[in-house]
C-alpha cells in the first residue's frame, strides 16, 4: 500500500434485531474494524432492494455487505433463501453494469456474532484493496 491510497468504503445493510446488536457489541468490546465501514439498518436482511445496492456502487461505495439474519430471522424461516435471492439477482444486474460481483457479499451475522463481523469486514476490505 502506498501513501495516500484511498481506503475502500463498505456499506453494510444490517438488521435492527439481529446483526445491529452484534455490531454494537464489537464496539463495546473495542474489537476494531476499518473505519470506512458504514452501517445502514433495515428491519430484515430480506428487505434490501437491489436498487439500493446499485445506488451505493454508483455513489462510490467499493463494497456492499448484507449482514443476513439467516436462521435467526424472526419473520420467516425462508429468510436465508430470500436474502440469497436478492444477492443472486443483484449479482446479475452488477454483471450487466460491469461491476465485479465479488463486491457484493452476504453472510449470516447473529446477534452476538461480533467476532465474525469484525473478521468479515477486515477480509472484505483486504479483498477490495
Amino acid at each position, binding site marked *: 500500500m502506498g501513501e495516500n491510497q484511498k481506503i475502500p468504503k463498505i456499506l453494510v445493510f444490517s438488521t435492527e434485531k439481529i446483526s445491529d446488536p452484534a455490531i454494537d457489541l464489537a464496539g463495546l468490546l473495542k474489537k*476494531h474494524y476499518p473505519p470506512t465501514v458504514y452501517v445502514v439498518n433495515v428491519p430484515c436482511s430480506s428487505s434490501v432492494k437491489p436498487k439500493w445496492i446499485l445506488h451505493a456502487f454508483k455513489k462510490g*461505495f467499493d463494497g456492499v455487505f448484507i449482514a443476513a439474519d439467516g436462521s435467526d430471522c424472526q419473520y420467516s424461516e425462508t429468510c436465508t433463501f430470500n436474502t440469497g435471492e436478492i444477492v443472486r439477482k443483484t449479482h446479475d444486474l452488477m454483471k450487466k453494469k460491469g461491476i465485479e460481483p465479488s463486491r457484493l457479499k452476504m453472510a449470516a451475522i447473529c446477534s452476538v456474532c461480533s467476532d465474525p463481523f469484525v473478521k468479515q469486514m477486515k477480509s472484505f476490505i483486504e479483498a477490495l484493496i
Partner: protein
Amino acid sequence: MRCRIGVYVCMCGSNISDYVDVEKVREIAAENPCVVLAKTTMFACSDSTQKEIIEDIKVNELNAIVIASCSPKLHLFTFRNVAERAGLNPYNYVQVNIREQCSWAHSDNPKFATLKAIQLVKAGIDKAKNSVSLEPIMIKAEHSALVIGAGITGMKAALALANTGTKVTLIEKEHYVGGRIAQWNRLFPHNDPAEKLVKTLYEEIIINDNIYLYTGAELISKSGSVGNFIVKIKIKPRYFKSGYLIEQCIEKAIESCPVEFDDPFNYGLTKIKAIQQNHIGQFPYYPVIDMSKCTKCGICTDICADIDLEQKEEELELNIGAILIATGAESYQPPSGEFGYGVIPGVITLQMFRRLIDLNGEKLIYNHKQIKRIAYIYCVGSRQYDGENQYCSRYCCTAAVHTSLIVKEKFPEIVNIHLTRGVRTYGKQEILYNKSNLQKDIYLQFDDTPPEISEENGMINIKVVDILTVKKTIELDIDLVVLVTSMVPRKNKELENILKLPIGRDKFYNEVHPKLKPVETMIDGVFIGGNCQAPMNISESVKSSLSAVSKMNALIGKGEIQLEPSLATIDKSICVWCDECTKICPSDAIIKTEYNGKPVAEINEANCKGCGMCLPVCPTNAIQLIGYSDVEIESMIDALASYSPEFTI
C-alpha cells in the same frame, strides 16, 4: 422536506469525546443549510439536556431533531419521548450511533473516528430531512383472552387475567383440569398435596364470573389478528345428561362396564374402565365416558338413566383479544432397551415410580417383588450426547432427590443410590439434596460412559464408572432402576398448524427474545407460558404464566392496541398484481383488491409486521416501507458515500 433541524452531538461523558472530535462534528453539521442549531452536550440523556432540547424545539420551531449519541437500542424511546413532550412528532427524531459503531469501534484511530462520525451525522440529517410524521396505528382490541391448557400454568393465568377484568375462556383438552401435577401427588419443596393446590384453583375458577371453563375442548381454527382473533372451539361431550342423579348409580355403572384397559394415569399399574371417575387431584368431580374405548354395549344406560351415549360434540365461536398457550410438556419415553427399559422388568420411569409409591401401602412391591435397593439413573433423555435432546430439563434432578426423600419416609428400609451426571438442585432445592445426603443416600457420578444394566435371576446388576472415585468401576445389585426422564415437547401438530407457533432449537415453543420478550411469540397477541416453552418446575411455570398475563393485560386491557407504523405501503397505480409479494409475505398481510378496474395488492395493516420482505420482489418497485423508503435509504447512502479526501492511508 424538513428544514428546521436541531443537531445534538453527545460526548457521553468522555466515551465519545475521547476519540471523536465532537466540536468538529458539530461545526460541520452546523454548515448544513437545514440545520438551525447544532450543539455538543455532555450527556444527551440527562434530565437537564432533555429539558434543554424541549426548550430548543419550542423556541426555534424545530421540525426535526438528530441526536448523535449511543446505540438506538438504549435511548431511541427516551428521545422519541423528548420530541413528543416538545410537541414534535416522535418519528421526526433520528438517532445516530456514534458510540458503539464509531468512537468505541475505532478508538484505535481517533482521526478516522471523527471523519466517520461526521459522515454518519450527515446521513442522519438527511434521514431527518426526509422523515415523515407518523402516528402509531391504533386498532380495537377485544378485552378477552383464550387460555389453552388448564394445568397449573393455565389455571393460574386464567385467574390472574380474570382479576384484571379480562373475560377468559379456559379450554382443556382432557376432561379434567390440573394437568400432570395430580400424578406427582406430593410437591416439592414443602410436600403439599397436589390435590389441595388444584382444588383451590379449580374452586376459585368456577366461582369467577369472568372465567368460562370448558373441559374436553380443543381449538380447531383461528383467523383474524391481534386484538380480534376469531377462534373456533370443539367441545367433546361427557355422555352424562344432568349429573344430579349420578351419585346413586355411577359406582355400579363403572363396575358393570365390560371395557377395561391400562390406566394411563397410573402408567398401566392399574386398570380403568371406559366409564371413568376422576382420580384424586383431578377436577371436576364428575364422571366421563371415554368414547374412543366405549363399545356402546348399553349395559350402563340400563343402570344410570343419566347416561346418554348419543350426545354430540359442540362447536363454539369466540372473539378473542389475545391467546396464551399453556399446553405443558410430556415426559420422555425411553426407547426399548435404553438402560434396559421395556426389556428388563425392574426398569421404570420416575413418573411411573411416583404412582407406584402412592399405590403401595406398607411395603413397596413391584412386579411381585419387594423393593429394597433403588438406583436412580439421571439425565435420561436430557443432555444427550447423540440424541436430539441436548438441553437440561432442569426439574428432574430435584424431582428425583425429592422422590428419594418421599420413598424413604414411607418405606424407611429403602436404600437410594443416585447415579448422576452432576446434581443440579439449584437455589432452595439444594436443601432437599442436603436432606437426601443426611438420610445416607449414595451418590455416584458418571460422565460420557453410561451405566451398564444387566439382569440375572431377578436381580439387576449395574456397572458404573464413578468419576468421583478416580473412575473406578462400581458394581451394584439393585431391585429397581428408576430412569429420571426428561421433559420433552408435547406432540401437538394441529395446534401448531392452527396458530403457526414458532418452534425453537429444542422443539419447544419459542419466545421472541429470552430476555427482552420472554413470553411473547412472533405472532402478535399469542403468548406462551409454562412447560410448552421450556422445562420448568411448578413455581417457575407459574411465574412465567403470570408474566404472560401482565403482558397480555398491557396489550388488550386498554381496549385498543398501538402498532409501530413502519408498515409496507403499495402504490396501487403502478402495481401490476403479479402475486410475488403475497407469495413471499410471511405474515399473510397482503390481500388482493381492485383499483381503477384492475386487480392490485393491498396491505392488511393489522397483519403487516413491517419486515419488508415484499420490497425487493416487486418488479415495478410499487412497495415502500414507511421509515425505510427509497428516498430515505438513498439519501443516507448519498451522505455516507460522499468522498472525504482525508480517507487515505
